[in-house]
């Protein structure tokens, strides 16, 4: 990454890197959410606020779904907490990226709110290439662009839901698992890859077992297993290299 001398340049770099696939994905995913919210009778105002204030699609969907079903408040809280619990490990693993940045640590509570799968993978993969004192500016430029794309997506999904051919909506909806499947599987670190593969296998059955906590349990089991096996994986890979 080129040298980013000023915060302004870092913000612009973030915006221009988000402008493309990352923004398109948020736009598509949130189009799906907008249509869904409209279908379930959520107001447009609340649908937009949901993207800004929750900023985690699965939780937003669960909120609308359960609220639409007339579920009790506690079910909504637990359901949303369960599917959005990934923000805890994601935030924790991203915070060291901002460690050498000179900003006031209180900002971290705001930065944490802007984390999504998109912005998280971007910072884990590319964050360290950026000068430490420009990372926050870069991250904000990147994540605000993604959020703006998401807001436009909700608007168009909500307003055009009835006039959009279902074929088009389907392609938007299907873009999301493809994109996340590809970027998450494309990691150079063996334990992460193992956690990903195991998570794919264990995720669906765990969801059937307990819809609310299936994701968290899957993550705990597969992530911990991958973490414990990390040294063995390294040895295994080295052997392979020698054989090759």
């Amino acid at each position, binding site marked *: 990454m080129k040298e980013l001398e000023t915060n302004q340049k870092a913000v612009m770099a973030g915006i221009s890197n988000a402008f493309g696939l990352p923004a398109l994905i948020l736009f598509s995913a949130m189009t799906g959410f907008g249509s869904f919210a409209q279908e379930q009778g959520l107001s447009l105002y609340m649908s937009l606020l949901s993207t800004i204030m929750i900023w985690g699609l699965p939780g937003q969907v669960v909120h609308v779904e359960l609220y639409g079903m007339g579920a009790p408040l506690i079910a909504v809280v637990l359901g949303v907490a369960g599917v959005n619990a990934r923000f805890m490990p994601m935030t924790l693993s991203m915070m060291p990226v901002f460690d050498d940045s000179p900003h006031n640590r209180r900002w971290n509570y705001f930065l944490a709110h802007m984390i999504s799968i998109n912005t998280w993978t971007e910072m884990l993969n590319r964050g360290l290439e950026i000068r430490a004192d420009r990372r926050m500016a870069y991250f904000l430029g990147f994540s605000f662009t993604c959020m703006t794309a998401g807001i436009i997506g909700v608007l168009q999904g909500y307003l055009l839901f009835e006039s959009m051919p279902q074929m088009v909506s389907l392609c938007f909806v299907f873009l999301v*698992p*493809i994109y996340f499947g590809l970027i998450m599987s494309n990691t150079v670190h063996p334990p992460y890859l193992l956690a990903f593969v195991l998570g794919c296998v264990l995720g669906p059955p765990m969801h059937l077992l307990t819809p609310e906590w299936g994701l968290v349990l899957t993550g705990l089991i597969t992530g911990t297993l991958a973490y414990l096996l990390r040294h063995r994986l390294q040895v295994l890979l080295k052997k392979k290299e020698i054989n090759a």
Partner: protein
Amino acid sequence: MLESSAWIFFLSAVLATYVWRFAAVMISHRIQANHPIFEWFTCLAYGIIAALVARTLIIPTGLLALLPLWHRLIAMALAFLGFYVLGKRLWVGIVFGETGFIVLLWFNGVDGIGL
């Protein structure tokens, strides 16, 4: 009455998400950056996101649920094929996956889906 209860539900959903982020920042301020716990948590995140992707693909809700499972799986397999065989370019994977998806939709036309 109805209006205010909608807001209570909404704000609860907001808090139920933010509480995780908040807790994580608080914890991160109390441990060193090179602590192995960060690697463990990244593993957890990978596991959870993988489960999320697999769930959307295999047990979807909404529109995707109208399509047969093999339809979704083949399109996803094509996306991976395009991505990993042709130089790990994201847009190639996406074009492969979406093209397969559209072709299957076209030839298999599913009940209840207008083209």
